[in-house]
């Protein structure tokens, strides 16, 4: 298991190199001269030259690449043009916001997705199954920004139960965080709940028809034990593999949801950076998001190996 973990982490290094190369490439591939874009239309040639020197664009390509990796190793992602502070600082300010909301929606997704899927499968072909399946279908079909807007109208405007937007850090006020994060997390999670419920249902149905389930019953185990131990342990294997994907979607979906709910997260940071052509910010932000996703995927793979002994041995 440990060897597997080390192998998986080592495998991540070339991927991270590749991603950083791509994010470096962004700067090189910007149509036209990035310096003139950054300096604005009214810049004098001298000012333009200054911007170029600041960005290191006057140096040869390979030198630039070398400097870029050197800074990366030092944890220096450059300076944001719009915010006037180091990219890393901005990223570390904003990331807890997005990550906490993404994790909140992940928790919602796992709890409700699994519960609905399992329930539908063990009550296969009954009204429980039909309700669960229809709910999952609705969840899958609703776009999250629309859902967010509807929830604002219902829960904030009409019922006045929850704030229309904004964010309270968990570390400052956990209850306040819960109140502020619930609608964004729910609107992010609903589609994933639908997807996970469908996957769980079909996997569970398949698992329940396996010979080892018949064996578990033949041993005289209680039905709860048969489902919760023998079946669920096998259902979790494919579920965990899609968790990585679900997390990526939750992270990227946060761009829209953060806009709808006016939440200062990574999503809105990157969105603004793109609109304002804040290239160092875009570069650094992408790199950061990629690193987070990669880490999560490694965690998921390890979890997968933990759950499935057949993978562990390889």
């Amino acid at each position, binding site marked *: 298991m440990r060897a597997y973990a080390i192998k998986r982490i080592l495998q991540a290094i070339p991927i991270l190199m590749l991603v950083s190369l791509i994010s470096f490439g962004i700067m090189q591939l910007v149509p036209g001269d990035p310096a003139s874009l950054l300096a604005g239309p009214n810049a004098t040639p001298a000012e333009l030259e200054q911007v170029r020197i600041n960005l290191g664009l006057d140096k040869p390509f390979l030198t630039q690449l070398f400097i870029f990796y050197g800074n990366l190793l030092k944890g220096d992602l450059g300076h944001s043009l719009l915010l006037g502070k180091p990219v890393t600082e901005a990223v570390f300010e904003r990331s807890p916001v997005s990550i906490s909301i993404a994790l909140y929606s992940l928790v919602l997704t796992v709890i409700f997705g699994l519960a609905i899927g399992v329930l539908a499968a063990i009550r296969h*072909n009954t009204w429980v199954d039909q309700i669960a399946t229809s709910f999952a279908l609705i969840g899958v079909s609703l776009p999250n920004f629309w859902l967010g807007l509807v929830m604002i109208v219902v829960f904030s405007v009409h019922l006045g139960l929850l704030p229309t937007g904004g964010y309270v850090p968990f570390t400052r006020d956990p209850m306040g965080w819960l109140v502020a994060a619930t609608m964004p997390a729910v609107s992010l999670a609903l589609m994933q709940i639908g997807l996970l419920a469908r996957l769980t249902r079909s996997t569970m149905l398949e698992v329940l028809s396996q010979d080892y389930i*018949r*064996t578990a019953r*033949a041993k*005289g*185990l*209680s039905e709860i034990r048969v489902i919760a131990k023998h079946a669920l342990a096998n259902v979790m294997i494919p579920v965990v593999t899609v968790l990585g994907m679900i997390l990526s979607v939750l992270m990227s979906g946060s761009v829209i949801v953060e806009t709808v709910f006016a939440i200062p997260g990574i999503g809105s940071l990157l969105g603004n950076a793109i609109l304002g052509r804040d290239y160092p910010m875009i570069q650094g932000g992408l790199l950061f998001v990629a690193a987070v996703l990669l880490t999560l995927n490694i965690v998921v793979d390890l979890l997968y190996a933990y759950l*499935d*002994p057949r993978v562990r*041995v390889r």
Partner: protein
Amino acid sequence: MSQTPLLSLRNLRTMFTGENGEVVAVDNVSFDVNAGEIVGVVGESGSGKSVTALSIMGLLPKTGARISGGEILFRGRDLLKLSSREMRGLRGREIGMIFQEPMSSLNPVFPIGDQIVETIIAHERIGHRAASARAADLLNRVGISSPARRMLDYPHQLSGGMRQRVMIAIALACSPKLLLADEPTTALDVTIQAQLLDLLRDIQDETGMAIVLITHNMGVIAECADRVVVMYAGRVAEEAPVDRIFDAPNHPYTVGLLGSTPDITRDERRLWTIPGSLPRIEAPPSGCRFAPRCQLAIADCERGQPQAVQIGAAHWAACLRTQDASSLGRKT
């Protein structure tokens, strides 16, 4: 044999709901199993052997299957009248079952030791350590060496034969009175088959439990069974002590089955196979179900289901032409 049988099937009838209404998979099946004996159940694929065993265990599919008649008396109690809770207490404790598919019958994600231990814990007030010790003993008993270490293995680390040994250990975990073995060796190669049958016989000798040994291999029957039930298309064709089945079969189907088994002792090259195939259960023949394939069939055979005729001590055959069948049996 005046004692009451351990297990007694009385006119068991099991149906499945298919696309075109209900089909009868097990029809009017009756036979007894006495304590300490090995009863072989033979019949070709689809004859209802597994469905019979699953009916006894109460493990038929929850939807689409139903026992529509008969009784399953186990130690005098009708299992069909027990609550699901009572049935659960019986399964794995008083009746153990092993299946045909050793490769898929164990849960791939749990160590085998755990799968034995949980069976013991489900039925007995016993500590985890004591249950583990018993599981190791059981593994040892079924011929798995260094059991303490093997208990940590996952199913995929074991061969098919080893897995079936583990299945036997699970079935034996609570010393059941009755073991239902549904083709326990069919999926394994011949040498392993012989070893496992020896093991089952040894254990049966030691513990005195009864075994229902389901198979479609007459060789296995010859080697292990005390009595034989021959099933055809969901019905019992013939029931007899094992030597009578081989020496004096009285049902043309039994004769055919014996003829299609290569017999080394008699040095026969010719392999007589029964022409045709099992009738579809959606459209069974109105009379004797074997009639369409039977070389002795007469007009009366198609008129109604033949009643079981007693031929000798503990020997019955459901055939109108037992006389001719027995002479047919002697010829081959």
